[in-house]
């Protein structure tokens, strides 16, 4: 086999992903058959649920938004060689912080949103600061420390919500935020709000940052060749710390967008799993922010489609989780990639 020049290499990658996709769907179909449903009906319902009409499309985009923003947070970390799996926790804290500003203060409309967002961002960054510090200073594995921090974040925000700021007489949630802190909605028929635009703008800005700025160059180099970067005069620790902080900040922003744009309050079990979905969307997009737009859209469509699935068929919504996992597994195997000659394998993940 000869090495193929770049374009056809890309083609092969795409073909490989398509093949992976087909295999995953086939496996999914088998499982759907096993639970006594028609795969065709299930897939059609999914499509209708995701893209059936304008409202459905808006619903898909609504689901896409948090996954996208969390995905960008993950991308930022991945580019700098940092694996932030704690986006879930940053999302929760950011969400809570934004809600707090939203209900506890009364500010003029635009300013209110900005202050709430700012605090969400700060909360997200602050939550990752300690794991980040230990990562760059002592090499503490950030995957594990951020996962553990997730549990604490969830419990902590529950504590705040229920013990300190519970809405009197209500379910375990904070009082609603003031209308001055609402993110503007895009359409009358959906909760879809400018959070989506923020996400897309952020994705584009992140991509541009990495491609066209000196700082972005430094981050990329630290991520892909840390010793080279160090040699070249880049402060690897500072960059690594900064990357995690910004990643955490974007995670917090995702929480803020959910709070101010959709729920207009913080509640227990606020947005479970979006952080992980974002991480996986970013991984599937191989750390590319633009690619993450598409993987997040794909996940969003699956989720939105699954809502109709539950209503229109007897299949459980969890079947979507299964299909999603199968797709991730199949795509991760990179089926058409040629295996390298060395058999020793990689010790740590690489991007």
């Amino acid at each position, binding site marked *: 086999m000869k090495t193929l020049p770049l374009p056809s290499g890309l083609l092969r990658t795409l073909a490989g992903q398509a093949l992976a996709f087909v295999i995953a769907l086939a496996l999914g179909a088998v499982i759907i058959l096993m639970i006594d449903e028609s795969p065709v009906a299930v897939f059609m319902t999914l499509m209708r649920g995701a893209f059936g009409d304008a409202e459905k499309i808006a619903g898909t985009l609504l689901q896409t938004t948090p996954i996208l923003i969390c995905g960008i947070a993950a991308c930022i970390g991945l580019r700098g060689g940092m694996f932030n799996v704690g986006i879930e926790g940053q999302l929760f804290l950011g969400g809570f912080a934004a809600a707090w500003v939203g209900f506890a203060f009364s500010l003029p409309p635009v300013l209110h949103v900005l202050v709430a967002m700012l605090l969400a961002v700060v909360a997200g960054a602050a939550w990752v600061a300690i794991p980040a510090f230990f990562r760059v200073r002592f090499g503490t594995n950030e995957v594990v420390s951020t996962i553990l921090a997730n549990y604490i974040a969830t419990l902590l925000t529950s504590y705040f919500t229920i013990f300190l700021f519970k809405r009197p007489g209500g379910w375990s949630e904070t009082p609603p935020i003031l209308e001055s802190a609402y993110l503007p909605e895009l359409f009358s028929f959906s909760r879809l709000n400018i959070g989506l635009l923020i996400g897309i703008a952020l994705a584009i800005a992140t991509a541009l940052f990495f491609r066209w700025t000196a700082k*972005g160059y430094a981050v990329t180099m630290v991520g892909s060749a840390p010793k080279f970067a160090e040699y070249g005069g880049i402060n690897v620790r500072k960059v690594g710390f900064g990357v995690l902080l910004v990643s955490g900040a974007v995670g917090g922003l995702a929480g803020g967008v959910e709070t101010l744009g959709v729920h207009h309050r913080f509640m227990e079990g606020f947005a479970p799993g979006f952080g992980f979905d974002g991480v996986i969307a970013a991984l599937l997009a191989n750390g590319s922010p633009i690619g993450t737009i598409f993987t997040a859209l794909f996940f969003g469509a699956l989720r939105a489609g699954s809502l109709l699935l539950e209503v229109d068929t007897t299949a459980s919504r969890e079947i979507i989780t299964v299909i999603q996992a199968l797709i991730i597994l199949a795509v991760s195997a990179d089926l058409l990639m040629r295996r390298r000659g060395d058999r020793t394998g990689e010790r740590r993940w690489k991007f």
Partner: protein
Amino acid sequence: MDLAVDLQGITKRFGAFTANSGIDLAVRRGEIHAIIGENGAGKTTLMNILFGLLQPDEGRIALNGKAMVIDSPAVAIAEGLGMVHQHFKLVPSLTVADNIFLGMEIRRNGLIDRAAQIERTRVLSQKFGLRVDPSERVAGLSVGIEQRIEILKVLARDARTIILDEPTAVLTPQESRDLFATLRSFVDDGMTVIFISHHLEEVMEVSDTVTVLRDGKVVATRPKTSLSKRELVRLMVGRDVSFDRRPRGPVDGKAALEIADLWARDDRRLPMLKSASLTVRSGEILGIAGVAGNGQTELAEVLSGLRPPSHGSVRLHGQEVLGLAPAQIRARGLAHVPGDRMVRGVDRNASLSANMLMGRQDKAPFSHRGILSWATAHAEMRALIKRFDIRARGPKDPARSLSGGNIQKVVLAREFTAGGDVLLIDQPTRGVDIGAQEAIHDEIMRQRDQGRAILLISTQLDELAALADRILVMFDGRIMGEVDGEAMDEEAIGLMMAGVDPATPVDPSTGIDPIGAAAAPAFPRPPASEEVR
């Protein structure tokens, strides 16, 4: 004919690159067969194929007259083949005996019998005169001992044919001589040795037959007696080469780089740089000779700010820079060609332009207010490709698509044009083909003539002889002495490289040992850094 190894038409490709092309190799039983060739000629690849670590794309292999398919080292080992690799393959956390018997453990009741392994190691060690302590852990042993363990590993498997891949690269001349004596005794016992090197003297000294590889092809297989050194070089390189000393003017610049009483520790936190002092003047090339792993890397890293120093002083143009961050040191005029180019020197997956950009991503004309101008970077890279004769299709090629020598040229091009007037050059021509070597030497001389101060670290004496105005020899982290480049005395250098003090050591005057090196156990040298990762 009684052939221990018979390879026919071996071809191995890595992607579009052909590392071995139609190679025939016949090794007679009971001979020392040297395989020589430039870096990258395909020696290791060929041996890895023979040993079952790589599979050939074409060709046939016969061992001891039997045609075989060697799809795993286990097959090769079973057929009496043993290999001592260029990069040692020992497990640091295991003991010497455990390492030797790895893969052929002695067991009793299903459990590994440590005592028996230690005993057997002791017996082996005595039988072959290779002294080791069987129950010691490998982590922390010196390279010389590691090599002994590797040889014992092979012997313990009853190898009758032993392959040694560049066994002397990390040894002192004296250690090398011991090794050769051992190899001789093996052959006297009827064993066969295949021995890889690109050091002509060694080859002339020990081998019976020589096979020369060039660009993945066999250019000759001859009995040693029918060869002269000059012929060997011509076969290796394809033309006559002389490392003649470059003509030069006198040195009269001011002191640009002054190092005084510099101490540092290596990655294992053992003292590895001990009271080094030296001065390089503008328009001068100061060479540092020494066997790899004697503190040269640490010296370079401390100077460029990559390794925290323990003690001492480093002045650039009279300004103290010790302890500053790499970027600050660069800003004060130091450029650095790292010895470990694949890890430190480039990002293999980034484009040439991106590699060139390193260190100047914040500077005009490549960036304005933090925004990069890739167009400028590509243009600059295109110019460098031309000027340094880099064989690449264009500035957007990923670095990994270039050969080692061309990657080295990319690094040199970047550093020579970085604007620093003190150049710290570590192993400038490691893994670089002869033609490119000359070009690089020309470029280094040009830099000298422009008045730059150059600290040149090299393990190749002929390179230093050709370029350096003065040569310092390092051993065990110390500077052993100085030799004039004009009248280089190879014997004296050789002795100093082996740690023999020519007269009195350079500067033990203060008597201070600030990092307690004297109290530390006789510490080992780390293995030569791996070049390709």
